[in-house]
């Protein structure tokens, strides 16, 4: 099993969700996060004074999928979250060694 962590632009959430459900992903977790990458922060101006905001708001998406779906999920995330502009985010993939559905006790692929 694979565990995806994707950092995306907040307004891309709906596109990402529909792209993933289209290829059969049955659940995801999204959280509001703040961070910086090569985009650095952004600058805001109030009453003539510039404030540099060093952390930019992003969404973090987490998805667990069977091994055979890795390529499709990767592709779907790449397509749906992209704007081509700086600050589009990142995709990280981890090996997942266990999964359990709490209600039924089902494990591994059956739990996804």
């Amino acid at each position: 099993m694979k565990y995806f962590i994707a950092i995306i632009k907040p307004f891309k959430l709906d596109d990402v969700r529909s792209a993933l459900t289209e290829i059969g992903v049955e659940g995801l977790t999204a959280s509001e996060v703040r961070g910086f990458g090569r985009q650095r922060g952004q600058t805001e101006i109030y009453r003539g004074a510039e404030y540099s905001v060093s952390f930019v708001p992003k969404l973090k998406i987490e998805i667990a999928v069977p091994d055979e779906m890795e390529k499709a999920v990767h592709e779907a995330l790449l397509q749906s979250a992209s704007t081509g502009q700086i600050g589009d985010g990142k995709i990280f993939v981890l090996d997942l060694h266990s999964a359990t559905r709490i209600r039924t006790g089902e494990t591994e692929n059956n739990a996804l």
Partner: protein
Amino acid sequence: MQNQFNFSNIKNLLITIFLCLFSFPAFAEINNGDTAWILTSTALVLFMTLPGLALFYAGLVNSKNVVSVLMQHFALACMVSIIWVIIGYSLAFSEGNDWIGGLGNIFMNSIELETASGSIPESLFATFQMTFAIITPALMIGAFVERIKFSAMLIFLFLWVLIVYVPVTHWVWGGGILSSWGTMDFAGGIVVHATAGTGALVTALTLGKRRGFPKSLTPPHSPILTMIGASMLWIGWFGFNAGSALGANAGAGMAMLVTHISAATASLVWMFIEWKRFGKPSLVGIVTGMVAGLATVTPASGYIGVPGALILGLGGGVLCYLAVDFIRGKLQIDDSLDVFAVHGVGGILGTLLVAFLATSTFSGLGLPEGQSGMSQFFVQFKAVILTILWTSVFTYLILKLTSLFVSLRVDEQEEIEGLDLRSHGEKGYHTD
């Protein structure tokens, strides 16, 4: 020509006799219409502080200090009310000398149900003035947000109201020195804005900068709260300026009109300056311009016409904008929410320019008997200098005195963690 001259003399004489016969008895009585309008104005001016100014300032600070700013306004409003009842009103408005009123009205003991002040009940006049005594020190909160110790703020402003606000009010409106000079200050350019602005600057210098000023501060946490608060200030200002006519009359109507025009003009001026300079018109910018326009028109609002209001809006917008840049950018003084640059500079500008804008050249309503624009300007100028000197010296001394009892600032760790949780045990926003 000669005949006409005589005729107008006779007409004037008749009018004078008419006024003496009929108007004076009427003025000694409490007038329902006047009373109704000042009741309304009193509520409007309190509304400027609670919650108007409180929200305006709260939106401009970090989200970890929002409760502290709101708390400072509320506690201050309550404290000043009590000071005013016990001794403030008496020292400001009862018979005294050039510099301070007397103790004849301590605990407001001479105000009875039917006591009149002009054409309104004195109980109402005292309450109306109380709301001015509340908002003036409240304006200074903008200078020391995010770092002052709550107890220090209470002690400092308690003394400040008695030693700065009350005497200056007596000088201008209580029959003191500035009123004997013939100073024109309709609704508080000197009494409210020059004192609060100067006091703010001295406080910011004495207290020192916030951590991270000016390079790594966090931006205003909610332009939304700031806009809501500013809009309440605008509406409340109708009570402030048009209420200062102390009656429901033609002067009140004109004061309301010029107040509104100056606010709208200065808002647009500020918006266009920022739009040109940074490429974007900002919400915090336009509402700051509004406050600048309102502060600038305040001393003049009972004396000028529409052209004067447009000029004050334009002048106040440009000059206050430049003052913000100069004080925060060039001098690097952390008058955190620009109290001096907006209220001080605006109030002083309006106080000086009213000497010219009240003349018929600008469709003004006229200067005091025997004054020309230049001679009145000199009167206004002297009044501003005296007020600035008095306010600076005593604000500094009061702060030093306060620091003998409590430290003026919170400790560094509290400044980092935020005043809300450490000083008040509350948070403005919970995420869960």
